């Protein structure tokens, strides 16, 4: 949906926090919390793909799971299609589930080895519809056609399939109940390079045909550039930058986004030999004990005094571009939140 014809947001996340308690000692008292996700807000518009990228441990998968309320949220709201699923009662939540589904990373682990393909794809239908067997079978076949699986394989078991085909089974299961919104949690990470493209193309085709909305979680920045309309870069439980795809890849604003993009190797020897990399020093701090101020201040090449004291807020610094960084304090016009008014100028923008 790059045509600017942005519809209303299908998913609205506000102040999402997901803290996991740490218990220690003889009495297993709570001694702290792992702040896996610590105050994340964003929108996903109808029909778009939002890419969510970051390194392992940054909380991107936790966000994906929290969005479907696979966890009980610590704080914040997740409004999907007009309903806040964070506070829905169990009954109402169950009725809501068909609209939101998930595709998991490991197609081996997320499919029951003792169930046939037909049973796996049909299970959501057993749970959520009162259809008779014939209608269900017809739907299972239809789904298998949609994801490019041969109908003859309906009675086979997951181990008889290759990784790419297994991922197709997982996708068919997610599609069974005609969802509007699908969280794809690293759907291609476990697949070989030559198979990844097949699955990504399938996801794109399905989106076009069925008008799906995706949250595409991945650490593969090149693939996210291909599939996403907008991209959120996470670091240590927070969003560092959220920008439209082209803008982010052409000129990342947040120093972490810049370093992350510069670290991705390009399959082009001539370019690789010329490239100036930003090599970040050290490792990601523990989310149980994040640094004071900006959570990136321990590794940031552009760190300032204020970064170690004051936590930056995510603010719109250019139209459509949200950045949480003190370098852009002047652009943001104080501390705005997503959706706030935009200032016109920016320091780095036009000359490049």
């Amino acid at each position: 949906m790059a045509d600017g014809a942005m519809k209303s947001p299908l998913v609205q996340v506000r102040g999402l926090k997901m803290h996991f308690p740490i218990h220690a000692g003889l009495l297993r008292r709570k001694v702290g919390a792992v702040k896996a996700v610590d105050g994340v807000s964003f929108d996903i518009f109808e029909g778009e793909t939002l890419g969510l990228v970051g390194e392992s441990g940054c909380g991107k998968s936790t966000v994906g799971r929290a969005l479907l309320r696979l966890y009980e949220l610590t704080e914040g709201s997740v409004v999907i299609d007009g309903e806040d699923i964070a506070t829905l009662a169990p009954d109402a939540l169950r009725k809501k589930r068909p609209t939101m589904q998930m595709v998991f990373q490991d197609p081996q682990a997320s499919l029951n080895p003792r169930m046939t393909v037909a049973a796996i794809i049909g299970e959501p239908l057993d749970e959520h519809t009162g259809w008779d067997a014939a209608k269900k079978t017809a739907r299972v076949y239809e789904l298998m056609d949609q994801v490019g699986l041969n109908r003859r394989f309906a009675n086979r078991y997951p181990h008889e399939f290759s990784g790419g085909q297994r991922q197709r089974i997982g996708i068919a299961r997610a599609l069974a109940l005609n969802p509007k919104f699908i969280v794809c949690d690293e759907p291609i990470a476990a697949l070989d390079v030559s198979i990844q493209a097949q699955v990504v193309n399938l996801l794109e085709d399905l989106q076009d045909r069925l008008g799906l909305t995706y949250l595409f979680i991945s650490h593969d920045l090149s693939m996210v550039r291909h599939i996403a309309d907008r991209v959120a870069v996470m670091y240590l439980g927070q969003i560092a930058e959220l920008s439209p795809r082209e803008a982010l890849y052409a000129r990342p604003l947040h120093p972490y986004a810049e370093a992350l993009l510069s670290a991705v190797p390009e399959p082009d020897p001539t370019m690789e030999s010329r490239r100036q990399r930003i090599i970040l020093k050290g490792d990601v701090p523990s989310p149980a004990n994040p640094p004071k101020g900006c959570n990136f201040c321990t590794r940031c090449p552009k760190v300032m005094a204020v970064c170690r004291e004051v936590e930056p807020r995510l603010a719109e610094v250019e139209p459509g571009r949200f950045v949480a960084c003190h370098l852009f304090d002047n652009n943001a016009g104080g501390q705005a939140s997503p959706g706030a008014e935009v200032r016109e100028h920016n320091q780095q923008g036009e000359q490049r």
Partner: protein
Amino acid sequence: MPDGAAPVLDVRGLKTVFRTRGGEIHAVNSVSFHLRPGELLGVVGESGSGKSVTMMSLIGLLPSPPAEVRAGEVLLGGRDLLKLQPRELQEVRGAKVGFVFQDPMTSLNPVFTVGNQIMEPLMKHMGMSKAQAETRAAELLALVGIPDAKKRLKSYPHQFSGGMRQRVMIAIALACDPDVLIADEPTTALDVTIQAQIIELVKELRQKLGMAIVWITHDLGVIAGIADRVMVMYGGQVVEQAPVRELFSNPQHPYTRALLKTVPSLTGERAARLEVIQGQPPILAGEPVACPFRARCAHAFDRCHAENPLRRAIDGRPVGQGHDVACHWSAGGAHG
């Protein structure tokens, strides 16, 4: 890297077979390559292409049975490693050939300190005393960029992060100053920013120590950044081999061409759709009698189904020296 320099490692016609209940799996089929002093050879391929099995066969790391190295020569410093007794081979491993594995978590022993594990090869292969080994181990840790090296010798693997553990693995592999370092997907389990750190480190160490490196990966981007020469493997065979720039600018084998197109770019034009290699990688049962890529190849013709192509040079230089490819279609020059 003068072409004339004698190779440090010369592998000829290596064949490795796994005996399984379902029959023989020919995982490595007549693989030949060499490594010149100070050179970095990149090996690219998907899982199951035989790249790891090739390297493990070289130094007898595969359990036998089921694995059996059926044919070939592996010449290192004038000796054929495949003819050595197990004890002699143990001398070669660690001392002459260093190995860095993909997963730094599982390749370090969790119950020994890091210092202990670096000192082991030093005392075993170099005959150092404990005190000497400790000094050298601290030097090695400092060399791979671990701060406060002396103190960290007493730490256990779980006290290090993933990137740090991979640095420790590299320190162990380098401990005895090997002629050849084999790195099997050393950055695959790491995040990109940490991967960038490790790649920088290896580049730096190469300049300092000048050893020859085999770097196995499925990531064409990593290869583009560090390799001198690239060998592309598919279905247990070398399908194409060329200097790195030549390979990326003038790929010949249909598999290499397709592979380069399926990877989306970070810069440059964004394709509306990704190019796809249809189908699945082959199952390598039985002796290969045809091209392993035939079922997925857009250019396959009769001959591809009847005869397994041999590697053929396309630039007039001997096979292995310049650019060679194992393909009936591209050898015919039909594509211009």
